[in-house]
C-alpha cells in the first residue's frame, strides 16, 4: 500500500505538495499517482460507503472515481482543486448508482415496526434511507454523516445553496416521517 506522508505538513504545504503530485501524475509518474491515491482513498471510501451502504460497492465506486479523475485530469484548470474534483466525481458516481438501484427496486417492502437493537436499527435506517430519492438521500448523508457545510454540499452536488437548504429540509422531514412509521413512535 502507498502511504501519504502528510502528517507533518501544514494545509498550504499539503496543497502545494498535492499540486506537484498532480503535475507529475499528468506526466505519467506512478509514484505521484500512488501518493494521490493514498491521500484521498479513505475519505472517498467512507463517503461512498455512507451513500451506498455497501462496503464492496463503495470500493468499486471510489476506484472508478479515481480512474475518471485521472482520465479527465486535462480538464482540471487548477491543480490545487484536485481534491474537490475527485470528491465531486465520487459523489456523482454514487448518485448514479443510487438512481439505478431505486429504479431497479420498483416496489419496496414496507418496514415492520420493531423495538430496539443496534443491528436492527441499522437495518431499519438503511431501508428508510433507500426509500428517499437519490438527491435527498445524498444531501442528507453529506450533511448529517459527512458533516459537510451547506456550501460544500452545494459545490459537490453542483446546485445552489438554496436548493441544498430546501432539499435538506424535505429530506429531514421525510426521514422523520418514515422513522415514525417504522418505529411507531407516534
Amino acid at each position, binding site marked *: 500500500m502507498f502511504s501519504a506522508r502528510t502528517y507533518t505538513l501544514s494545509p498550504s504545504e499539503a496543497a502545494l505538495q498535492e499540486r506537484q503530485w498532480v503535475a507529475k501524475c499528468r506526466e505519467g509518474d506512478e509514484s505521484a499517482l500512488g501518493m494521490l491515491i493514498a491521500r484521498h482513498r479513505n475519505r472517498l471510501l467512507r463517503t461512498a460507503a455512507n451513500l451506498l451502504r455497501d462496503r464492496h460497492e463503495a470500493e468499486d465506486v471510489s*476506484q472508478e472515481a479515481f480512474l475518471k479523475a485521472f482520465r479527465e485530469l486535462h480538464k482540471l484548470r487548477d491543480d490545487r482543486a484536485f481534491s474537490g474534483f475527485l470528491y465531486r466525481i465520487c459523489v456523482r458516481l454514487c448518485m448514479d448508482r443510487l438512481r439505478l438501484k431505486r429504479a431497479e427496486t420498483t416496489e419496496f417492502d414496507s418496514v415492520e415496526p420493531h423495538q430496539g437493537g443496534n443491528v436492527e436499527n*441499522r437495518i431499519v435506517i438503511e431501508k428508510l434511507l433507500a426509500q428517499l430519492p437519490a438527491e435527498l438521500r445524498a444531501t442528507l448523508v453529506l450533511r448529517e*454523516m459527512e458533516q459537510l457545510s451547506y456550501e460544500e454540499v452545494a459545490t459537490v452536488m453542483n446546485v445552489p445553496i438554496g436548493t441544498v437548504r430546501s432539499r435538506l429540509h424535505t429530506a429531514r422531514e421525510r426521514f422523520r416521517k418514515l422513522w415514525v412509521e417504522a418505529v411507531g413512535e407516534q
Partner: protein
Amino acid sequence: MPNCRKFRRLCLEREDRELRPRETAFVDSHREACDPCRIQEAASVNSLNMLRAITMTVQPSDSYDSKLVRRVKIDRGRDRFAYWFPGIVSAGIASFAMFALLQLVTSSHPVKPFIDRSAGAQNFAAPDQIEPRLLLAPEAPRSITR
C-alpha cells in the same frame, strides 16, 4: 397553528445554527404547552441521531491500491490505443487502396472479346449465343507399320 409551524421550523434550523435566546425561550415554552410538537421534536431528534450513529468507517482492503494502479495502467493503455486507432485504421485503408490500384495498373492481361469472326459476325455476341464448334487439330500423318 402558527406557533406549531414556527416551533417545527426552529427545530429544524437548530440542527444547522444556534438559536437566539428569544427563539430558544419560545421553543422551550411551546414544548411544554404542545404535546404533538413535543412528540414530533423527539422523533426528529431521534431519527437524526440514529442516522448519525450508523456512519460507516471503512478501511480499504489490502489489494485496493494494487488493483487501482493496475486499472489505471490498463485505462491509460486503452487511451493510448484509442488515440492511435483512427490513424492506424486510415493507414490500413490507404495502403489497401494503393495496393489495389497498383494491381490494376500492373495487370497486363489482354481482354478477349466474344467475336466469332470466322462466322462472319461483326458484332459482339453473348457467350450463350455462340454456336459451339469443335476445333480439331490437324491430323498428324499416320505411319502405318506392318
